[in-house]
C-alpha cells in the first residue's frame, strides 16, 4: 500500500464512525485489524483504542484475541483505559477455557503495572500453583508474575517462596525454565528466602546434563535445552560461594552453602560434562552457538565459584585459544569471559601471557571486539603492566572510533591515577591524554588532574614546567589551556627562576591563547592573571592592561571579572589581594568522580550484574575506594565542583539507583537488605516446628535409631552413628500416600548463634520424586566443634497435589557426642573435687511438670534408663548412698577438645523429686547437659506401665494421622 492510500484508509475508518456499536463482531475485528496494520507500518493511530479494547469482553475467541493484541500494542502500563479492562481480564483468568486464561496472562505480562498487579496477582499465582493447571498455563503464569514482580516487588509474598521453588522440579521443562526465570529475579533480592533454589538448580542441571533426563522435544541441535542450562548456571552465580567477593551484603549469609559437598560435587560433575561436550567441534552453526552459550555461562560460574582449581586450569588455556579464534563471536565472548576472570582472579598471570593478543584486539575490524578488548585491558592492568598498556591505549586513542573515545579517555585517566608510581609519568600521560582526546574528555578528567597536582606538592613543579611547555605551543588544546591557566596561577612562581619560565614568558604564553578560547577558559585565564598580580609584581602593568581591555568586553561575566580584578589590583594596599589570592587549600578527600562516572554507565539493567568490569578491587565490597591508599598519591580526591553521582559505584554493583552522599552509600544498601531479612519467615527454623514433632524427638534423644515423625502421608525415620566429635545421620522418608510425591525437598537449618559450634555436610540428597510406598534417604555428617545447646531443624516439603510441608527438630544434641566412662571410686571423688563448684558445676532439683503428677511418676528404673540414655557410664559402688546415682562420661568436640563430665543424682522417690548435679572440666558444658536431662526427667513416665516404653508406633500414627501442615 502506498502512503497516500494508507492515509485515506485511516481517515475513512475514522470518519465513517464505524465503531458506532451497530457493527457485527466480524466487522469490528476486521477494522481493528486494519488499524493495527496501519500502526505497525509506523503511522500514528490515536483513535479507536476504546473500541479495540472493548473486543476483549467479546465471547468469541478470535475477537477477544484481536482485542488483546490491540491492547498490548496500543496501550502501555500507565494508560488510563487499562482501568476499564481489569475486570474483563479477571474474568478470563477465571474462565474454564485455558486459552482464555492464556490471553489474559499475555495481556498482564505485556502491559501489567503495579495497579494491575495488585488487583490480579492472586489469580495469577493461583494459576501457577493449582494442581489442575496445565503446563502451558503454568509457565505463562510464572513469567507473568515475573513481570509484575519487576514492576512492584511486593506483589510476590514471602510465604509463596517454598511453593514457587518446588515448581523448579516440574517434569515439564518449559515450566521449569519459566519458574527458574522467576526464581532468579526474586532470589537476587531475597537470597536467604530462596536459598533452596540453589540445591534445586544444581540437582536439575545435573539431571539434564549428566543423567540425560529430558524429552527429545527439548533437544536443540543435539544440545539438551540450552536455555534452561544457561538459566540454571546463571542462577547459581547469584549465590555467593565463599562470601569473599560477594557483591551484595545479603549474599554473604549463604556462605555456608559451600559446606555441602554433595551439591558441590553435582555442580562439578555438570560443569566438567559441559566442558567435555564443548571440546567436540562441529560444523552446524546453531549447535555451535548453543554449545558455546552454555560453555561461556559455565565458565562464568567456574570463575564465580573460585574453588574449582582443576576446572579453572582447563578454562584459562581455553580462553587463550578463544581470543585468537577466527570466528568473531568467539573472540568477542572470549575477551568478555577473560574480563570476568580478571575481575575475580587473585593472580593475573595467566591473562598477562596473552597481553600481546589482547592489545592486538584493539585493532580488530569489529568495534564490538575492540570495546571488549578495552574492557579487558582496563581490568587486567596492574602496577607491573600499566606502563605499556596505558601507552598502547593512548596510541590507539588517536584513531579510535568516536563512539568509544570518551570511555577510553576516562579509563586511561583512571588507570594513570591508580598506578601512578612515578610523578613524571602521571603528569606526562595526563597531559598527553588531554592533548589527544581533549574534545572527548569529560570535565571530571581535567579537574581531577588539577586536584591531584594541588594536593601533592612533589608534582607541582614538574606539572608547572610541563603545562607551560604545552601552552607555549601554537596548537594547544583548549582543555590544556584550562589546566595551564590554573596550574600556572597557583604554582607558576615555583618555576619563575628557571630558563624560559620567567613571569613575562608565562604571561605571554597564556595571553596568547586568550583570543582563541571560549569565554569559560578566558575567565580562568583572567583569574590566573590576578594571581600573577600577587605573585609577580614586576609584570603588573601588562596584567592591568589586559584587565582594562576586558572591562569593555561584551561578555558580561568576563566584564565583571575584569572590573573586579582591576579594582582589586589597583587598591592602595595589597592586603586584600593577598588574602584573596592565597594558596588554595588541598581538596577534601572523596571518592573519585571518575569512577562514579564510569560506573554510572552500568546502572539500570534488569538483572543484577554478577560482576563489573574492572580489576579485582572493583569487585570487592567497598569497590574502588581503596584508590585512596595508593602510595604515590598521598590522597585520592574528588572534585567538589562535580559533586553529584557519588555512590554510583555501589549502585552499579547492586543494580539500584541509590542516591547517597559520600561514602555513606555503603550503608544505604545494608539498611533495606536487613529489613527484608526480618520480614521473610525462615520456615526451616525452630520457630516453625510442626505440631507433633516432639514425641519422636524425645524418644530418639535416648536412642540412635527410630521413627522421628509419622503422619498419614509420610514417615520420617532416623539412623545415626557417633564417633568422637563426628556424627552420621541418615534420614529415611517413606511415602505413605497412594500416589507418587514430587519435588521432595529438605532444608537444614540451625540457629545463627550455634553455627560455629555445630557444622554439617550433606553427603547425599533425597530423590525429588518418591513413588508410592517408596523410600528416599539423605545422609548428613555433623561435626561438633564446640558444645552446643540448640538442635538443628529440618524443613521437609513435597508436592502431593498441594504443597505439604513440615519442620522437625533433629535428635542431635550435645550428649550424643558423649562416650560413657568407667572410673574408680577414688578417681571419681578426686576429679569431682578438682572441678569444684560453680561455674563448672550445675545443679537443679527436679520434680514432675506441674499438672502431670496424677498420671506420671519418677521411679528408679526410669531414672536409670534416662541416665544411660544420656550416655553416662553409671558407676556402681562409688556413692555411699546406694540410692544415689553417679556417672562419668567424655564429651567430644573438635575445636574445644574432650571434656570430662561427672554426674550425681540424688532421688527422693517419696516426694517425686531428684537433685541432679553435673560437673565438667569446662564451664560451657554442665548447664547444657543439665537442661537436656531436666526436661527429660520432669516429663516422668506414665504410671500404670512399669516397663518403660514411649508411645507405640500405632499410638503415634493415630495421634498424628491427617495432620496436614502447609
Amino acid at each position, binding site marked *: 500500500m502506498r502512503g497516500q492510500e494508507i492515509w485515506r484508509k485511516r481517515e475513512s475508518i475514522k470518519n465513517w464512525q464505524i465503531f458506532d456499536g451497530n457493527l457485527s463482531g466480524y466487522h469490528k475485528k476486521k477494522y481493528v*485489524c486494519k488499524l493495527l496494520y496501519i500502526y*505497525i*507500518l*509506523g503511522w500514528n493511530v490515536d483513535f479507536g483504542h476504546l473500541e479495540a479494547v472493548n473486543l476483549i469482553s467479546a465471547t*468469541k*475467541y*478470535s475477537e477477544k*484475541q484481536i482485542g488483546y*493484541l490491540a491492547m498490548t500494542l496500543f496501550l*502501555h*502500563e*500507565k494508560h488510563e483505559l487499562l482501568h476499564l479492562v481489569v475486570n474483563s481480564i479477571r474474568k478470563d483468568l477465571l474462565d474454564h477455557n485455558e*486459552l482464555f486464561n*492464556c490471553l489474559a*496472562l*499475555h495481556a498482564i*505480562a505485556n502491559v501489567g*503495572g503495579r495497579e494491575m498487579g495488585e488487583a490480579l496477582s492472586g489469580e495469577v499465582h493461583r494459576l501457577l500453583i493449582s494442581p489442575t493447571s496445565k503446563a*502451558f498455563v503454568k*509457565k*505463562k503464569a510464572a*513469567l*507473568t508474575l*515475573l*513481570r509484575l514482580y*519487576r514492576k512492584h516487588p511486593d506483589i510476590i509474598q514471602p510465604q509463596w517462596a517454598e511453593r514457587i521453588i518446588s515448581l523448579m522440579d516440574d517434569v515439564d*521443562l*518449559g515450566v521449569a*525454565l*519459566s519458574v527458574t*526465570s522467576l526464581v532468579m529475579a526474586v532470589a537476587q533480592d531475597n537470597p536467604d528466602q530462596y536459598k533452596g533454589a540453589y540445591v534445586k538448580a544444581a540437582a536439575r542441571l545435573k539431571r539434564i546434563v549428566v543423567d540425560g533426563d529430558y*524429552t527429545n*522435544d*527439548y533437544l*536443540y541441535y543435539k544440545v539438551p*535445552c540450552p*536455555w*534452561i542450562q*544457561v538459566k540454571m548456571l546463571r542462577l547459581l552465580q547469584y549465590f555467593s560461594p565463599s562470601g569473599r567477593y560477594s557483591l551484595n551484603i545479603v549474599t554473604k549469609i549463604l556462605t555456608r552453602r559451600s559446606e555441602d559437598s554433595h551439591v558441590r560435587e553435582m555442580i562439578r560433575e555438570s560443569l566438567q560434562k559441559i566442558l567435555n561436550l564443548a571440546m567436540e567441534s562441529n560444523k552446524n552453526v546453531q549447535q555451535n*552457538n*548453543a554449545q558455546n*552459550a*552454555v560453555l561461556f*555461562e559455565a565458565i562464568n560460574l567456574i570463575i564465580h565459584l573460585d574453588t574449582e582449581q582443576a576446572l579453572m586450569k582447563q578454562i584459562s588455556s581455553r580462553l587463550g585459544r578463544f581470543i585468537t579464534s577466527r570466528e*568473531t*563471536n568467539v*573472540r568477542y*565472548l572470549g575477551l568478555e569471559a577473560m574480563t570476568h576472570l580478571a575481575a575475580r582472579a587473585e593472580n593475573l598471570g595467566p591473562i598477562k601471557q596473552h597481553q600481546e593478543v589482547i592489545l592486538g584486539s584493539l585493532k580488530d*575490524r*569489529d*568495534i*564490538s571486539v575492540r570495546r571488549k578488548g578495552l574492557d579487558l585491558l582496563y581490568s587486567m592492568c596492574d602496577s607491573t603492566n600499566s606502563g605499556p598498556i596505558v601507552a598502547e591505549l593512548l596510541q590507539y586513542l588517536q584513531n579510535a572510533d568516536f563512539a568509544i573515545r570518551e570511555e577510553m579517555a576516562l579509563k586511561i585517566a583512571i588507570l594513570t591515577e591508580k598506578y601512578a608510581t612515578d610523578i613524571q609519568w602521571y603528569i606526562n600521560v595526563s597531559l598527553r591524554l588531554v592533548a589527544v582526546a581533549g574534545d572527548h574528555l569529560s570535565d571530571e578528567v581535567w579537574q581531577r588532574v588539577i586536584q591531584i597536582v594541588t594536593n601533592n606538592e612533589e608534582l607541582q613543579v614538574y606539572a608547572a614546567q610541563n603545562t607551560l611547555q604545552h601552552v607555549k605551543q601554537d596548537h594547544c588544546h583548549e582543555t590544556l589551556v584550562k589546566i595551564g591557566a590554573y596550574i600556572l596561577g597557583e604554582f607558576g612562581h615555583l618555576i619563575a627562576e628557571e630558563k624560559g619560565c620567567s613571569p613575562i614568558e608565562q604571561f605571554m604564553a597564556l595571553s596568547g591563547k586568550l583570543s582563541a578560547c571560549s569565554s569559560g577558559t578566558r575567565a580562568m585565564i583572567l583569574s590566573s592573571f590576578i594571581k600573577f598580580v600577587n605573585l609577580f609584581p614586576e609584570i603588573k602593568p601588562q596584567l592591568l592592561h589586559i584587565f582594562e581591555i576586558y572591562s569593555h568586553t561584551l561578555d558580561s561575566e568576563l566584564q565583571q571579572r575584569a572590573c573586579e580584578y582591576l579594582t582589586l589590583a589597583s587598591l592602595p594596599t595589597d592586603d586584600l589581594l593577598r588574602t584573596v589570592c592565597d594558596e588554595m587549600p588541598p581538596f577534601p578527600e572523596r571518592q573519585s568522580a571518575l569512577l562514579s562516572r564510569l560506573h554510572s*554507565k*552500568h*546502572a*539500570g*539493567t*534488569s*538483572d543484577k*550484574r554478577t560482576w563489573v568490569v574492572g580489576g579485582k578491587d572493583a569487585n570487592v565490597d567497598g569497590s574502588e575506594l581503596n584508590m585512596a591508599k595508593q602510595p604515590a598519591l598521598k590522597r585520592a580526591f574528588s572534585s567538589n565542583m562535580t559533586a553529584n553521582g557519588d555512590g554510583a559505584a555501589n549502585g552499579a554493583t547492586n543494580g539500584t539507583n541509590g542516591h547517597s552522599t559520600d561514602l555513606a552509600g555503603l550503608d544505604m544498601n545494608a539498611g533495606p537488605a536487613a529489613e527484608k531479612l526480618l520480614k521473610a519467615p525462615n520456615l526451616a527454623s525452630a520457630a516453625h516446628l510442626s505440631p507433633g514433632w516432639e514425641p519422636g524427638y524425645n524418644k530418639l534423644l535416648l536412642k540412635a535409631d527410630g521413627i522421628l515423625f509419622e503422619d498419614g502421608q509420610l514417615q520420617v525415620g532416623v539412623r545415626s552413628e557417633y564417633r568422637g566429635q563426628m556424627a552420621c545421620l541418615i534420614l529415611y522418608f517413606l511415602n505413605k500416600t497412594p500416589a507418587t510425591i514430587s519435588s521432595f525437598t529438605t532444608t537444614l537449618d540451625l540457629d545463627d548463634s550455634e553455627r560455629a559450634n555445630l557444622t554439617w555436610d550433606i553427603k547425599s540428597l533425597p530423590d525429588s520424586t518418591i513413588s508410592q510406598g517408596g523410600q528416599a534417604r539423605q545422609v548428613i555428617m555433623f561435626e561438633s566443634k564446640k558444645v552446643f545447646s540448640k538442635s538443628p531443624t529440618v524443613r521437609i516439603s513435597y508436592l502431593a497435589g498441594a504443597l505439604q510441608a513440615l519442620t522437625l527438630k533433629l535428635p542431635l544434641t550435645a550428649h550424643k557426642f558423649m562416650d560413657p566412662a568407667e572410673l574408680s571410686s577414688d578417681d571419681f571423688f578426686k576429679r569431682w573435687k578438682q572441678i569444684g563448684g560453680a561455674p563448672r558445676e550445675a545443679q537443679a532439683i527436679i520434680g514432675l511438670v506441674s499438672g502431670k503428677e496424677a498420671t506420671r511418676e519418677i521411679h528408679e528404673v526410669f531414672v536409670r534408663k534416662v541416665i544411660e540414655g544420656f550416655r553416662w557410664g553409671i558407676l556402681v559402688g562409688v556413692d555411699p548412698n546406694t540410692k544415689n546415682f553417679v556417672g562419668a562420661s567424655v564429651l567430644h568436640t573438635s575445636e574445644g577438645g574432650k571434656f570430662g563430665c561427672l554426674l550425681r543424682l540424688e532421688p527422693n522417690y517419696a516426694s517425686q523429686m531428684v537433685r541432679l548435679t553435673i560437673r565438667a572440666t569446662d564451664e560451657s558444658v554442665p548447664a547444657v547437659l543439665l537442661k537436656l536431662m531436666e526436661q527429660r526427667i520432669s516429663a516422668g513416665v506414665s504410671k500404670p506401665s512399669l516397663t518403660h516404653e514411649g508411645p507405640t508406633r500405632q499410638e503415634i500414627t493415630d495421634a498424628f494421622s491427617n495432620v496436614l501442615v502447609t
Partner: protein
Amino acid sequence: MSTRLAKWFTTLSPKDKAKIVKDVSQLVLARRTRMCNFLEYKGSPLSLLYSHGSFLTRGLDTKIVYRRYASLFFIAGCSSDDNELITLEIIHRYVEQMDKYYGNVCELDIIFSFTKAYYILDEILLAGELQESSKKNVLRCIGQQDSLEDMEVEDEVTRIM
C-alpha cells in the same frame, strides 16, 4: 528499511521507541559480514530510567543481538549482562517456529498475517524471557487457537445459512 514487526517488553514513550528503532537500524545496517552478531548500544540517559526485558530492546544500557535472514534482520536487545549466544538462538528458534507454521516462511507471510507472527512470538517469549523452547509445544498451542477460531467461523457460517 522499514519495521515489519516490533515487540517491546519495556514501557517506553513512542518518541523513545522511534529513536531506538532508528539508531539501532542504522548501527546494524552499517555492520559488515563476518563481524560478530553483538553490538553495544547506549540509550539516552533519560531512557536509562526504564529497565527490564525485551525483544527489540529490553533495558537500554544494552547489547544488541542481531541476525540476518536474507533481506530480513531480526534484532533483539538484552541487558549488558545477558548471555549473547543464547539470545541469538532465541531469534533462530522464533524464525524456525514461523518456518514450521507457515511452511517456508518469507517476508510476505509476516506482513500478511502479522497477527499470527505476534501470537507465535507470545508463545515463545513472555515478559522478555523464553517460555518454551519445544517447537512441538508451541505448535500445539497455536494449533489449539486456530481450531477454536475455525470452529467459530463454522458456527458463524451455519448461523447465516
